[in-house]
C-alpha cells in the first residue's frame, strides 16, 4: 500500500515538473524579435498621426532624443515622411517576418527545454531509487 502511495507521489511530481517546461520556454524570451530598446518597438497606428503628416523634415535629430516609450520613432531613424507618395527611406536587407522557435532571437528556448527534460529524467530516477530502496528495506 505504501509502495503504491509512494509510486503515485513520484508520478505526480514528475508530471508537475514536465508541466513547468513549456512555462520556462515561454519566459525566456517574452518578445524575441522586438529590439531591446523601447524606442524600437513599433508604434500602433492608433497613435496620433500628426508627425507623419508633416511634409517638412523635423529639425530635431532623432538620435539625440531621450529614449522614452512614448516616442514612436526608433533611434536614428530619419524623421522625414512621404507626403506625396513613394518610399522616402528604403530599408536595407530583407524583412524578418517569420519567427521560428529555432531562430536566433529565441535560441534560449532550446536550452531551457533540454534542461527541463533532463530535470524530469533526474526526478524520475530519484523516484525509482526511492521506491526500490523502500522495497529493499521492507517498508
Amino acid at each position, binding site marked *: 500500500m505504501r509502495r503504491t502511495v509512494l*509510486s503515485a507521489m*513520484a508520478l505526480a511530481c514528475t508530471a508537475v515538473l514536465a508541466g513547468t517546461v513549456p512555462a520556462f520556454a515561454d519566459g525566456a524570451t517574452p518578445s524575441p524579435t522586438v529590439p531591446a530598446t523601447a524606442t524600437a518597438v513599433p508604434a500602433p497606428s492608433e497613435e496620433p498621426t500628426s508627425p507623419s503628416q508633416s511634409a517638412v523634415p523635423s529639425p530635431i535629430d532623432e538620435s539625440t532624443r531621450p529614449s522614452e516609450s512614448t516616442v514612436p520613432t526608433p533611434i536614428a531613424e530619419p524623421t522625414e515622411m512621404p*507626403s506625396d507618395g513613394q518610399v522616402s527611406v528604403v*530599408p536595407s536587407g530583407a524583412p*524578418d517576418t517569420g519567427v521560428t522557435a529555432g531562430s536566433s532571437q529565441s535560441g534560449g528556448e532550446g536550452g531551457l527545454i533540454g534542461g527541463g527534460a533532463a530535470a*524530469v529524467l533526474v526526478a524520475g530516477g530519484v523516484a525509482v531509487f526511492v521506491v526500490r530502496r523502500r522495497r529493499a528495506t521492507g517498508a
Partner: protein
Amino acid sequence: MTPLSRRAFVAAATASLLAGCTGDRENRTTTARGSSAPSSSSSASGKPARPLGRSVPVGLRIPAIDVDTPVMRLGLAPDGTVQVPPVAADDRAGWYRHSPTPGQVGPSVILGHVTVDPYGDGVFRHLERLRRGDRIEVRLENGTTAEFAVGSLRNVAKANFPVDDVYGDVDRPELRLITCGGPRTADGYLNNVIAFAALSSSRS
C-alpha cells in the same frame, strides 16, 4: 528492476518525452513551399483607379485568406532593416511608415509574420495562397476603404530580396504585402513572399 520501479521509470520517461514535444507544438502549421509565382510586379487590373489622399491604414482585410487585422505603424530598426510587428499572440500586420499610405501614388508596404513562435501562426500565414485578382481591403484612418487587386506573387530568397521592385517608385497606387516563406531552418525562413497589388477602387 521490480515491476513497480519499472512502472515509475516508464512514467518518468513518458513525461520527459511529452515535455520535449511541447516546444514544437506550435510549429505544426508552417509550410515551406518553394514554388515561385510569376515574377511580374504589374497589377492584375488594367483599369486605373484614382489615387487617394494621405491617410494612414488602420485595418487590413483579405477575404481570400481569412485575414482581418488591425494595422500598426512600423519604422526602421537600428540596423537599418524594416521593423516587423512584435511577436505576440494577437499578431497583426504593420505598415511601413516611410512608404506611401495605401491609395497614394507609390508602393505602400505592409508586413506581417507567417509564424510567431511560440504563439503559432502569424497573420500572413496563408499569404502565399493569394492569387491574381484576389481582393485586398485596407481601412484608412479617414474612414475610406482602399481596395486593391493582387497582380502577382513572388517567393524570393532573402539574399536576393528585390529592393527595387518592392520599394522603387511607381506611377500609380500600389500595395506590397510581405511575409516570410520558403525553406525553414533553425535560423528562420530563407525566403520572402511578396504580394504585389494595385488600387482597384475605393469607398468611403
